[in-house]
């Protein structure tokens, strides 16, 4: 019987080695897999390359991982925010490498990685500093920039419910990068608020089919707002 269930977040991330590329889901804190990040922090892997839309908020989650000097490089679209002080300090001190990517290009690079597309031409960023040094091509009268696919050794994502086969559903805008990162990583680890029995998820409503997910861990049913249901 297939079971991708990991007994804890600690177990789910225990084999992530130093130097791994790790995609981390979330848009700000929506969809950020905080328990998995905390487990990774405790586990101690360092010299990591992190792929995330942002570069940490406040002092917890991804920001804590950065603050503990575990990250060598971050690939993201929007590092600077009102509460990104940990990233800001490390970046200004030259202790953290930044690869800045337009958000849609970041999403598409991850999608391409998961779909076996080596690269693609996109009009985004043509003529800007973010396209410097990249191959360009005029296609159907419009200028495009060649972008590479992005893959990772691991993805840490947050979904709402899942089953032992790894099928996932998400909650509202917390979906964001989750389905893409799950497909682009060799080992995708999903934390969910509840693991349900096989057959309980409506097959028509499954967003991430289990084939993209290697590990699933239940981290408790705490919803972001205690007053709201599913």
């Amino acid at each position, binding site marked *: 019987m297939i079971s991708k269930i990991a007994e804890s977040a600690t177990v789910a991330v225990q084999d992530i080695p130093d130097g791994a590329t790790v995609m981390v889901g979330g*848009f*700000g*804190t*929506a*969809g950020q897999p905080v328990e998995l990040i905390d487990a990774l922090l405790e586990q101690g892997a360092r010299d990591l390359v992190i792929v995330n*839309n942002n570069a940490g908020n406040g002092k917890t989650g991804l920001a804590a991982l950065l603050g503990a000097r575990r990250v060598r490089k971050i690939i993201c*679209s*929007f*590092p*600077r*925010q009102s509460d990104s002080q940990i*990233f*800001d300090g490390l*970046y*200004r001190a030259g202790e953290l490498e*930044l690869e*800045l*990517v*337009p*958000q*849609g*290009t*970041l*999403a*598409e690079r*991850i*999608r391409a990685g998961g779909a076996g597309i080596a690269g693609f031409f*996109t*009009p*985004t*960023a*043509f*003529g*800007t*500093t*973010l396209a410097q040094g990249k191959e360009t091509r005029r296609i159907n009268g419009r*200028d495009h920039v060649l972008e590479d696919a992005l893959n990772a050794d691991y993805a840490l994502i947050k979904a709402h419910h899942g089953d032992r086969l790894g099928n996932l559903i*998400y*909650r*509202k*805008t*917390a*979906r*964001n*990068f*989750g*389905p*893409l990162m799950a497909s682009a990583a060799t080992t995708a680890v999903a934390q969910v608020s509840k693991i349900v029995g096989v057959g309980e998820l409506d097959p028509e409503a499954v*967003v991430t089919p289990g084939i993209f997910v290697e590990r699933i861990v239940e981290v408790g049913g705490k*919803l*972001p*707002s205690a*007053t*709201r249901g599913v």
Partner: protein
Amino acid sequence: MKGALSRDGMASRVAQDIPEGAYVNLGIGLPTKVSNFLPSDREIILHTENGMLGMGPVATGDEIDFDLVNAGKIPVTELPGASYFHQADSFGMMRGGHLDICVLGAFQVSTSGDLANWHTGGEDAIPAVGGAMDLAIGAKQVFVIMELFTRDGHCKLVEDCTYPLTGIGCVNTVYTDHAVFDLGEKRVVVRELFGEFTLEQLEEKTGLRLQFESVR
């Protein structure tokens, strides 16, 4: 004569130009204000690039749910008919030409429609682009809403942008406190004037060659 428009006045003016049935993305900051003035008799669907169509007003009280936020990471609400999707679909809606209008703020816009709104280029500034470049080149029409002059009195509608570019030739219309400008082939057409300036005075203040919209 009426004075220049307030920020609410500018947002209200943009809202008037968003037609029934439009799919619209409103950028962070001043563009977000446009949602307060959308005519209630038009069905307009708001897109937020973090993965939702049918975004409702900002959430209050018990509605606040940090799984439901807008691009500025502010908790919002969902309207009947809303949908959620992942980031690649969300940006495909822009790049693929499905989104009718996006409304963006700007540091500068050039007369040929170049947009600079993501980075001041300052040496100590930490760059952050988010969805700005995708929005700039993706929507069918790009509206910019901004004050025409900086606090130091420099015109933000310029011959050539000096700030780092977000997109080339992508802006269609610029809504400012003093006028609405349509950017066309090698010409800037003033569609409306709000402030005390005449067209000639506006030309002098902006240093640009302007044209009035031809009389119908």
